[in-house]
């Protein structure tokens, strides 16, 4: 029984078939989804996290079907994501962003908030400390009270990661986590991801364009092109797959790259 599986996922937008009968499964560890621009990678993430409802197919996480659930319900079940075009709460501080990420885990009602009793204060203090700890872990320990919009680009990506982690997910979906980072920053982030997988038994699915990152960090790689899965396997298998090379380089490129 896998942690996460998708079978036969199809998504159409008018006449365009963005995803066609895509199967995907993750037992544990880090899986990468790669493919040229417009291949349907982000659409697949949007289907996984409830932003889109698939026209056909099934998405399962642990014992639950995710199809038809709202994004916040999916987050509450333990699947959280980041966005390709960083979507932080810009006017809020770094730590407030992380605190919002904890929303699904806060067990307090309106009366607790209005009465502000010891229970509320206990939960709130704990949340602030946990949020501080998460920011520490992603390397933003000194920017707790900086508004998100004032953070440099790489830090914003790290903050988005911390915010997603705050919901205590068992599966994390990262949409181009190293985009805009320097090589050193990207390597550092990959180390962090490896650590998270080891510490929290966290499953991670990455969309990534940086092939060095993909090859180094992922256990499995899935390749999408024009909404279809064209290859799947270990990084090494995928790297030498002629269909993959063709998708990236075109037919002539594939011919010259073939041994």
């Amino acid at each position, binding site marked *: 029984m896998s942690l996460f599986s998708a079978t036969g996922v199809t998504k159409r937008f008018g006449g365009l078939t963005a995803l066609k009968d895509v199967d995907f499964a993750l037992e544990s560890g880090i899986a990468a989804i790669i493919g040229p621009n417009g291949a349907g990678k982000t659409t697949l993430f949007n289907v996984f996290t409830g932003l889109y409802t698939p026209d056909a197919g099934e998405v399962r996480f642990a014992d639950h079907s995710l199809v038809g659930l709202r994004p916040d319900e999916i987050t509450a079940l333990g699947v959280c994501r980041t966005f390709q075009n960083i979507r932080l709460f810009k006017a809020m501080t770094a730590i*407030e962003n992380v605190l919002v990420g904890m929303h699904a885990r806060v067990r307090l009602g309106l009366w607790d908030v209005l009465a502000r009793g010891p229970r509320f204060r206990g939960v709130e203090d704990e949340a602030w400390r946990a949020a501080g700890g998460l920011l520490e872990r992603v390397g933003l320990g000194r920017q707790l009270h900086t508004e998100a919009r004032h953070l440099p680009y790489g830090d914003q990506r790290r903050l988005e990661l911390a915010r997603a982690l705050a919901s205590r997910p068992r599966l994390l979906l990262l949409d181009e986590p190293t985009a805009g980072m320097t090589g050193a920053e990207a390597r550092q982030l990959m180390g962090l991801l490896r650590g998270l997988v080891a510490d929290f038994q966290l499953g991670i699915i990455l969309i990534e364009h940086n092939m060095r990152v993909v090859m180094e960090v992922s256990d499995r790689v899935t390749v999408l092109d024009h909404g279809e899965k064209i290859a799947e396997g270990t990084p090494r298998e995928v790297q030498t797959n002629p269909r993959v090379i063709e998708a990236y380089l075109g037919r002539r490129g594939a011919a010259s790259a073939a041994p």
Partner: protein
Amino acid sequence: MIRQPLVAIPASLALLIVSGLAVASAPRSILAFLLFQAAILFIYLAAMPWWLRGAFLGVALLVMMPIIGAYNVYYLEIATQVGIFAALALGLNIVVGLAGLLDLGYVAFFAVGAYTWAIFGSPQANQIFGGGFPLAPGWFYVFIFVGLAVAALTGVLLGLPVLRLHGDYLAIVTLGFGEVIRVLANNLDKPINLTNGPKGITPIGRPPVPFGIPYAEFSYFLVLLIVLIVIVVNRRLEDSHIGRAWEAIREDELAAQAMGVPLVRAKLLAFACGASFAGIMGVVFAAKQVFINPESFTFLESIGVLAMVILGGMGSIPGAVLGATVVTVLNLQVLKGFSLWLNELKNAGVVILGYPLASLPTQLEPAKYERMIFGIILVLMMIFRPQGILPARRRQREIEVTAEEQKSVTT
């Protein structure tokens, strides 16, 4: 000097005394009362220990203000109006400032609260139930909560159909909703006479006043108490996961939902909370005015409250209170006083640059400048200080891992 406690504390004291004496010696002077208000603002902003600030504000609002009211009861009326609008601004601040849901029909909830008490606190309800009304004046206190509940319910009912709307579209729908409530109030005099239509409802019962306090003073204290409660509730909501969820929705709705914020519940809660404050004040307003009709709840009132929130600073609690004060005092006092003064000049036959004011055409009468000057102030504010007079400050707190320091304070 406002940042130096050694200067600020004596300065606050001096300002309070001077302004108090000024009002006492010239009860009709607008400037004296403005000085008193400035003293209160100064105390709020000046650097001093919280208990001293509380003591100063307590003296100013609980002791000096009622005494000023004894000299000139109109000032007490202004202070009460400021309080009513402060509560409205604080309610709208939740919806617009925190949750970012632009509501142009907010006064509808005020109307709902007002009509709730007006109908049952006057003989009007006899038209519906046959007899037995008005309710005894003591019911007023129960109806504060009834007004809260009815307005909150109305807020949810408005919220449900507009959940998927943002920005401009939401603004138009709420604007329409505000008009619907007013038009309903105007026309629900048949087939069953609920609201008595444009004629309005009167006399609306006033609550029994303890210790024989004059009603103006009682009304002032009641409004002050409600505003204090509203501020506390507002602060607690804002500084909790609920308030953070609202702000997250304002910043990026889609990301907020992806982070686990249930949009429907959070938005409906924002509408309900905002509406409930207006509902409470509606009940108080109906009793204070004794007479209400649909004209008290026009679109312009909604815009006025929105102007208070934006002028004070979106999402800022002190901003909402200050905005309510500035707009109310401008409208009731400063601009009125200004046009009266111009009128006096005109009647006295003053000549400016060889042009006698008395021969001004009626289209240019001073009273007509009031709205224009108010508009110019809004325009200038938005150009030069778009974040508002007292913009919202981000909450910070020290986070320590050690157990002793868990009781950290919000600064």
